[in-house]
């Protein structure tokens, strides 16, 4: 048997040396980014914790009411009130911050990539397989290389969340732009619009609902990463679940899990409506 065995392709070694090379040469940069981002996150959490919880609850409930109607407003108030009562206020705010920062970065990177993919065939052919790769790769795997680049903690968590949660933002931005009817593009062309004028006056405005649907999915995916991200020290509600797993405390685990569900429902309803308002 031995005789016929084909030597193993050292794929793992190649990836390791590739990552080592990148770590050696770029870690100083990523570490610097990491330090700044960590500060930003701390500031946001501090900011949210600076107000008494009831103020934050009122603000979110009013926002829910205004964006999505009375029911969502009431649900937000009860849901957040419950989290406060369960003494999960601080981890909730930490998780919220993590999700919002990851989403913000995902949109910051994903929107231009989506636009590029929609407007250029070459970009489309490069970006789409990359999307498939990012989405099908098990999310845990991203955690491993994140640590040498960003260190343990929130920033690594955000980085892996970003990679995992960005594809819908890119895909739906691309889709939204491509969906603009050809006859409208033709009308814009007939009046002598430049590519940029077409993009900003026609394609992007018409793509907004689709882009918002993408952002909504990004937020949901980001939330689904919080437990996994807790494994590299992200804390928050994911951290609560992670601790409960390690100590086999089912009650505590479910309590934190339910908190994540409530937060997810609130964010889902709010982000669904932001695109439709106006």
């Amino acid at each position: 048997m031995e005789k016929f065995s084909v030597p193993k392709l050292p794929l793992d070694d190649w990836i390791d040396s590739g990552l080592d090379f990148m770590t050696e040469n770029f870690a100083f940069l990523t570490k610097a980014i990491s330090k700044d981002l960590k500060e930003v996150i701390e500031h946001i959490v501090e900011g949210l914790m600076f107000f008494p919880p009831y103020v934050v609850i009122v603000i979110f409930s009013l926002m829910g009411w205004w964006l999505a109607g009375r029911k969502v407003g009431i649900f937000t108030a009860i849901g957040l009130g419950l989290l406060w009562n369960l003494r999960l206020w601080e981890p909730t705010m930490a998780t919220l911050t993590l999700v919002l920062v990851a989403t913000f970065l995902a949109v910051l990177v994903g929107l231009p990539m989506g636009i590029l993919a929609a407007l250029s065939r070459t970009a489309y052919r490069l970006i789409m397989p990359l999307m498939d790769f990012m989405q099908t790769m098990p999310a845990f795997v991203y955690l491993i290389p994140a640590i040498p680049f960003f260190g343990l903690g929130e920033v690594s968590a955000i980085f892996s969340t970003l990679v995992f949660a960005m594809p819908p933002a890119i895909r739906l931005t691309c889709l939204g732009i491509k969906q603009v009817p050809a006859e409208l593009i033709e009308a814009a062309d007939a009046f002598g619009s430049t590519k940029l004028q077409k993009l900003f006056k026609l394609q992007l405005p018409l793509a907004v609902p689709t882009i918002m649907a993408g952002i909504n999915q990004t937020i949901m995916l980001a939330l689904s990463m919080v437990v996994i991200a807790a494994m590299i020290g992200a804390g928050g509600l994911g951290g609560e679940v992670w601790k409960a797993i390690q100590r086999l405390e089912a009650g505590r685990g479910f309590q934190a899990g339910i908190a994540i569900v409530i937060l997810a429902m609130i964010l889902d309803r709010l982000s669904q409506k932001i695109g439709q308002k106006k």
Partner: protein
Amino acid sequence: MEKISAVNLTKIFGPHPERALKLLSQGTSKDDIFNQTGQAVGLADVSFEVPEGEILVVMGLSGSGKSTLIRSINRLIEPTSGQIFIDGEDITTLDHDELLELRRHKFGMVFQHFALFPHRNILNNVEYGLEIQKVDKELRQEKARDALKLVGLEGWEDAKPSQLSGGMQQRVGLARALAVDPDILLMDEAFSALDPLIRGDMQNELNSLQDRMKKTILFITHDLDEALKIGNRVVLMKDGQVVQVGTPEEILMAPANDYVRRFVENVDKSKVLTAKSVLTQARVVAYPDDNPRTVLDKMNSECLSGILVVKHDDNTLQGMVQVKAASAAVERGDKSIASLIQEKVPTVTSTAPLTTLISILVEWPWQVPVVDEERQLQGVIVYSGVLAALAKRENI
């Protein structure tokens, strides 16, 4: 002066037009070319001119290349070969930026399905062309309001396109094109999606707008009645080729082939044909200082029971003298016919439709004079001429 002139325009759809072009030059038909090469012939060697201020209607069945033609004129579709001259300048050689400038200032385009921007209100739709030109907001909105007024849509500025009926949406489409004050309007089946009544209104409105604006208009339609109603001249297309070019009357009276004949078969000619196409030259006329005897001779020579009287120097119509009056004057020994002239005579202009002529001829047994604005006599209408024109339809 020619505003638009297209010279040997050809468009082949497909990545490798060379073979199709070669086959085309050998006279291979569109279908055969498609079967042999997989390339679709959009336009095959199309040439035509549109003088400034004229409405040229391009007509043909679906798939005959009308949309391809109109889009070649502003290069929304790049012709495979041939040239397009706008104001004498060859625009096929323009680079990207020059082309944008040309589209911004020379052309206004109106689309079959309106193509209004759904996220913009009516005012913002109409100002779009000017916004693209970076005209400042106040001025462009003022112009947009003027354009909306022109099409009768004042007060709808803040509505969204979806709140308007089809007819109103197309008025917005027209206003959007007019707002940039283009020399040339390109209208691709602009009224085809509207129901017949609204459509008739829009045709009338376009005609009356055109009387004031004097734009050069390329108007596409697959409807002959519309073509005849709107067009100064008509281009008939089939399989990407021009089959016939002419005035509506020329097309009706002398169809170039069976394809055109099939088109014109069902047209109500009495609505379309005008006095111009049935008038004949008055073979004899009388002058006010003519002797009654002479006038009587003139009438007898042409077997007329009445003769038109015109001024000697400028040919303006004075009236008519009947044979009875002339004979009486001869017997009385009058010197001239001046006192016999009967001034009340129905007149028509050369653009009067046949239906009008018929209703006059029913009650007026004599020739009907055709005059211009200065009342100069241009010809006469006789019953037999009208009948002949109408009869021509029957033997097609």
